[in-house]
């Protein structure tokens, strides 16, 4: 009756997947896709999405070996307590860095389009303060916020995209599939840029009552994300062509700015979209931030994760203020996502799974879903 369990439902897991991966990067992703994938970027995006679904299945398989335990708990069984704790700590630091990047990127977008005269510090501080408040509520709060904001965010977003379709010139996508091999190899190092946040799945599955039931929601969540990215890249490339899309930093916002709906009393939709896009940045941050506070609490063997929210918030604040400007931020980002992210997203989970398999840890067969 008193349902104060720290559990999440399969539906909530799907929402967590979607809302943690899709962040402020959406505006920039079109630029990246157009730069490295050219006019075939959307095909590559779809292909990468499918690969990531299988990657996520590996995460689930790993979690299924340790039902009822979360990643920071069972990694200590796999690698031993000391090494496990170091690893969890490293992941937390990486996610903190990631969040700081996210916050700062959003702040730069917001400064450009919404609040040109407000100091960066104020924008960042207000945002992460609200995030810290939600994270203090625990996994239930995070999952519920994500669950509720999903329709609030995406329904208006799609509604806004549709009226711009006449502006699209789909011939920009032609010729399909020429020289796709090189484009692919150029694009692959940037996969973590689009799909960062997928590693959060590893943590959240642990909060499910039956991790075996995670396959479906995770698959649906990632299909949505892939579909969304594909749609966005088709729009970006279709509207501007691969070359011009490369020139703009946020092609999608330009696309939205150019939409004019006759009879509507709102003239520039980008401001509106950007202000509801605060929500997605917010959800990306709370999903990651919760993981950090939770992991740290496991590293220090503390029962509660609440008290870590405010101190760690200061770290995000500090890190987010480090880059001097947008150019430095994106330089930073390139470095993080090319090298650091790949280790945490791909290498560590797979190695952990291998070690667990070799050492025969946990429940071996758990195919009863």
């Amino acid at each position: 009756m008193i349902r104060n369990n720290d559990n999440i439902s399969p539906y909530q897991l799907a929402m967590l997947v979607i809302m943690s991966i899709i962040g402020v990067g959406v505006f920039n992703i079109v630029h990246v896709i157009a730069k490295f994938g050219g006019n075939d970027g959307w095909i590559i995006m779809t292909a990468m999405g499918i690969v990531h679904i299988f990657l996520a299945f590996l995460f689930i398989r790993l979690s299924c070996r340790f039902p009822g335990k979360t990643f920071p708990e069972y990694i200590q069984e796999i690698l031993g307590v000391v090494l496990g704790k170091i690893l969890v700590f490293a992941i937390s630091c990486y996610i903190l860095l990631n969040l700081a990047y996210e916050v700062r990127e959003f702040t730069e977008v917001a400064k450009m389009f919404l609040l040109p005269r407000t100091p960066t510090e104020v924008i960042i501080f207000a945002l992460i303060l609200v995030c810290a408040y939600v994270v203090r509520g625990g996994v239930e709060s995070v999952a519920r916020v994500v669950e509720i904001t999903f329709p609030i965010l995406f329904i208006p977003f799609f509604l806004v995209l549709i009226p711009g379709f006449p502006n699209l010139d789909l011939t920009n996508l032609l010729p399909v599939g020429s020289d796709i091999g090189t484009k692919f190899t150029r694009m692959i190092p940037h996969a973590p840029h689009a799909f960062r946040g997928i590693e959060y799945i590893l943590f959240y599955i642990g909060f499910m009552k039956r991790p075996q039931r995670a396959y479906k929601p995770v698959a649906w969540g990632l299909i949505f994300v892939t579909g969304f990215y594909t749609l966005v890249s088709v729009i970006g490339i279709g509207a501007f062509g691969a070359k011009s899309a490369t020139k703009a930093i946020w092609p999608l916002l330009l696309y939205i700015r150019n939409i004019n709906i006759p009879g509507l009393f709102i003239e520039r939709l980008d401001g509106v979209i950007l202000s509801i896009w605060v929500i997605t940045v917010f959800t990306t941050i709370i999903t990651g931030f919760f993981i950090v506070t939770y992991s740290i609490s496991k590293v220090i063997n503390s029962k509660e994760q609440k008290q870590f929210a405010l101190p760690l918030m200061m770290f995000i604040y500090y890190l987010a203020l480090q880059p001097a400007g947008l150019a430095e931020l994106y330089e930073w980002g390139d470095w993080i996502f090319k090298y650091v992210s790949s280790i945490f997203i791909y290498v560590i989970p797979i190695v952990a799974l291998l070690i667990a398999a070799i050492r025969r840890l946990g429940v071996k067969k758990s195919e009863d879903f």
Partner: protein
Amino acid sequence: MAILTGDTVMLIDGTANIIVIGTKGWPARGISEPTTEAVIRGPKEGFTETYRFNSALVRRRIRDPRLKLKQMQIGRRSFTDIGIMYIEDIAQPELVAEVKRRLSTIDIDAILDSGYIEEFIEDNPYSLFPQIKATERPDKVAAALYQGKVAILVDNTPFGLIVPATFNSFFHAAEDHYIRWIPATVLRMMRFIAGTLSLITPALYIAVTSYHPGILPTELVLSIAAAREGVPFPAVIEALILELTFELLREAGVRLPTLIGGVVGIVGGLVIGQAAVEAGIVSPIMVIIVAVTAISSFSIPDYSFSNAFRLFRFMLIFSAAFLGLYGMILGLLLMLGHLVRLKSFGTPYLSPFVSFTASDLKDTIVRLPMFMMKNRPLGIANDKVRMVNNRHEIKKGANIKEKEKGEDHNDKE
């Protein structure tokens, strides 16, 4: 002495004892129409101050021997009667036990209204949002009991309490279930829209005019600017002046006798509204904004719930003044972050919107036809099945055929 205070004395021949029968009667307010929750269609009885009348009103609607009324007394000096009502096989025993446990912790000298009880047993008394529903309507209490909720009746007050209460239920009026479902759905949606408007309209206006005039068409910006010309204050101060005036008027109007209440309307509406605009203190658009907000906030059915919205509105005004649309959205997210944490007796406050089952969404923003709501909502009930859909029977066995046209009839004969 007993006779003089209204008791009956029974003397029986041959016995030495006298039986004193307590037959005191006292003037009680009769059952009248509920003032805060009036309906156009539906029962017009409301609770009254006499506890026994109230329990009888509910009992008349639930003639089930499993309807339980557990009575207790709270108040070291007042000994106020408190009744816990539930239907035994629908309400979960854990919920009933929890209500009893929380009630038994109350130790106070007097209980004068159910509001006392509410504050003592709420999950989070520091929240702006009420987590217990107070109602004057016996039919609402009965409907809640049929859903597996628990009602608390308190002597000397016409307000019963219903637990658990959810965000959603505060937007529902009793009438929603008595009128046909399509208008009921539309009205409900309007109420949700009104709730949103009453929260964000002033904040939105401030954010757009002072931070992002670019998102409006040029003509509208110009007309707003023209209207604001000569107003010496920034939009926030303007909004605060008018909002405060409105809240003052409302507060003054609530407690005044009806005869003088009308005068408040005239003073407020005509003198302050008109004169303030003409004096150039506020712009006419601001008056419209505040009026829209006011009307919207009146369409939230529950009084204490609309109070929460009132206060949040001011918070949003400040955050919009501080950070524009961005601040407004952050304010709303803060509110959401607070709401997802709230619980009312174990039920998430935002259910069924969070951790939902699709069948519970039938009676939320929309109100689907009765025959589609087969199960009791919210997942708090033990006995899930509420009804069997016999709708198809009506079509199948139609006894009354449409009358054929007169001419055809004659031809056949």
